[in-house]
């Protein structure tokens, strides 16, 4: 299941794109395409294990 903090947007405060791109609502930034694979749990990737942003945010909420 994709990261709950992943959204697809085509604009942010300072960037806009023709195609909606992966946006992290924790850091409020578009993410790198390779990181988007982690956000989406594609291949062998898993946001709970591989994303330091998710892990730090989850630890902060505990």
């Amino acid at each position, binding site marked *: 299941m994709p990261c709950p903090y992943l959204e697809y947007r085509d604009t942010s405060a300072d960037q806009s794109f023709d195609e909606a791109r*992966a946006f992290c609502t924790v850091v409020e930034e578009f993410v*790198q395409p390779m990181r988007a694979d*982690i956000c989406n749990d594609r291949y*062998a*990737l898993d946001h709970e294990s591989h994303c*330091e942003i998710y892990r730090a945010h989850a630890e902060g909420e505990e």
Partner: protein
Amino acid sequence: MSYEAFLDGDPVIVTAALTGGVHGKEANPNVPETPEEIGRAAGEVEAAGASVVHLHARRPNGERSFDTERFQEIDDAVRRHTDDVVIQHSTGGTGAPDADRHRPLRTDPPPEMASLDMGPLNRYDHLTSENTRGLVDSLHAEMVDRGIKPELEVFNDGHRNEVHGLLARRDLADPVYATLIFGPGTLTRPRPEHFLTAIADLPDGATFNTLGFGRHQLPFATMGILFGGHVRVGLEDNVYYERGELAESNAQLVERVVRVAEELGRPVATTDEAREILGL
């Protein structure tokens, strides 16, 4: 490859890494992502002096793709926009299944070259791109079957052991062509003394390409030119032209390194010369 090659004024091959798979337009809006954008960029860098284009594939939203069909679309666009540039596909793919790593090799025709990552490297804080010896060997075997020249990507000093090990395990066609990579994290620390050690430690007769990430791109390309190697530049590896100033295009980065090479007395290799040097 050595300082003698510089003194002799041997041609230098310029490879342009046009797009990559790590960052995209969120880092620099000038990074080409669609097949048409990549094709146009290939035409521009060929006109600027690049003889090899290093290619990754992306989905329409910039995310990574390993699909043969997507590489085919890109190759078709590159061929529409170029005369006879050498096409080199990436087989890199952090976290992707081994089977997907083979898919860039299966276009029609196959790429003339493809990258072969020589071992593991860390990504972010909790992820490693494994690049096991088993995967290296299976990718190399398919490259041999398809007549594809491997470009050995040497991300750090330990990977040079892997180059020597690969040569002991498998029959690599001459010349061995290795890209020496310098930068942060798992990469070889970007210091001139490490560059000199790396080029001295390559197998006899090997030809090397020089890749510095980020702000190390220009100084390491210059060292590559001075010490008889070849160079790789492009937005995959560096999105800036100068500190704080985003690059306008891949061609802008190629034009600069071509000026450096010519000023230092090494002409830029034509595509025919590049094929001869690389044994394609």
